[in-house]
């Protein structure tokens, strides 16, 4: 049966504006893409396993990540443990692969997003060939047929298990949630890019995290721009950010305006009180 998933948590799903469902998964070491057209699954074998069918460790091993761009073109990313990420795209002339080479793709979790203009982003763990010291969470961006790779968060030691999930806010600033289990540390972090710089925050520490039955990491944003990340500590949980003060004002600039206005009022009041006290 072609739908047999031989690698747990390898499946991914996306739905385009026309309601067409796109799925990706790894079946017996091969990468499968399928879309549902009027109740019929159209199946495409993106990568056929090169070795023995059961030997998934020798070939494709990773989770798939499916995304649909603004033009309705499907894209599928999958991590190979032979040192690169395969990103497949069907942009109207059949499926083509845009490999993103990466010397050490130790962990097969990749997360793909596609913008309205067809720009692709993929998050993963590894390091670029040119800079082995930049080991950690990376993000590749493919625009105009060229990949650009940038380090997101460095890690001093390799985790035992790594999973990531990529999304973007309303201004198209990428946000990556990632979870690691390792000998030195474990937890869930969120890396956000704003004005070109990445900022990483640990959102859940090791306390209570359970490595098994946690599954894929997932991230999304709500209508207010708050980030939600799935968490498993024995129950179905999530972690979200909220504003410490001025709660309810979600975006940064309105918060800054309110805060500055408050500060200005406080300053004027202080001056008036000081002048009154000095003239008394």
């Amino acid at each position, binding site marked *: 049966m072609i739908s047999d998933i031989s690698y747990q948590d390898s*499946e991914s799903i996306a739905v385009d504006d026309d309601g067409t*469902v796109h799925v990706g998964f790894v079946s017996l070491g091969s990468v499968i893409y399928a879309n549902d057209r009027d109740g019929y699954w159209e199946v495409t074998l993106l990568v056929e396993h090169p070795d023995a069918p059961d030997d998934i460790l020798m070939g494709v091993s990773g989770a798939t990540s499916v995304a649909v761009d603004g033009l309705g073109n499907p894209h599928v990313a999958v991590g190979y443990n032979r040192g690169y990420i395969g990103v497949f795209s069907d942009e109207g002339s059949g499926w083509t692969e845009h490999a993103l080479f990466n010397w050490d793709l130790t962990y097969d979790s990749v997360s793909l997003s596609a913008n309205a203009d067809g720009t692709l982003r993929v998050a993963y763990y590894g390091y670029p060939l040119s800079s082995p010291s930049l080991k950690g969470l990376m993000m590749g961006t493919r625009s105009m047929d060229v990949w650009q790779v940038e380090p997101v968060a460095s890690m001093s030691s390799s985790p035992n298990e790594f999973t990531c999930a990529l999304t973007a806010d309303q201004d198209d600033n990428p946000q990556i949630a990632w979870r690691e289990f390792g000998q030195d540390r474990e937890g869930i972090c969120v890396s956000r890019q704003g004005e070109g710089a990445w900022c990483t925050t640990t959102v859940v520490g090791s306390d209570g995290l359970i490595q098994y039955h*946690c599954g894929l990491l997932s991230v999304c944003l709500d209508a207010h721009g708050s980030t939600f*990340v799935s968490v498993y500590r024995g*129950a179905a*949980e999530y972690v979200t950010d909220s504003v*410490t003060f001025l709660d309810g004002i979600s975006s940064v600039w309105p918060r800054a305006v309110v805060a500055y206005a408050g*500060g200005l009022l*406080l300053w004027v009041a202080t001056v008036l009180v000081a002048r009154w006290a000095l003239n008394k």
Partner: protein
Amino acid sequence: MVSSQQGRPEAKSKRPSTIVVLASLALVVVLVSTAVIYAAMDVEWKVGRARDGDASWPYVAGDGSGSLHMTYAVDDSLIYASLTEDGWEESVIMTGLVRGASPLAFDGNGNPHVCYQLEDPDYESGPMAYSLSHANHWRRMGLVGDQ
């Protein structure tokens, strides 16, 4: 005339102290304002729970309107939950064991679509199934590729 000349030095000595006091207060206000702004910008992460009790393989996704939804497994059921004003509301996607997380996506009408791996106790692998919901009614659309 004499009393007037005696009064001037007192006025001159008072003006610098006023400036110093005001400047100090302004500095304090600036520092307080900076702290308020920093606090406003500071982000606190909170853990929420969609369901009390054992539930595994949580997966979170937002729909086109920005509402929050999750899938997770409870005993032998795959659950879909939506965050509403009254809290989390659950519905059963299907009854049966699943393996791993069940990714969730939404179409343009806000209908949820879920793919999941059915647990096959005899094998490490298991078939991939797909379900979608219209008007809070879930339908399993068969096994992916099994046609």
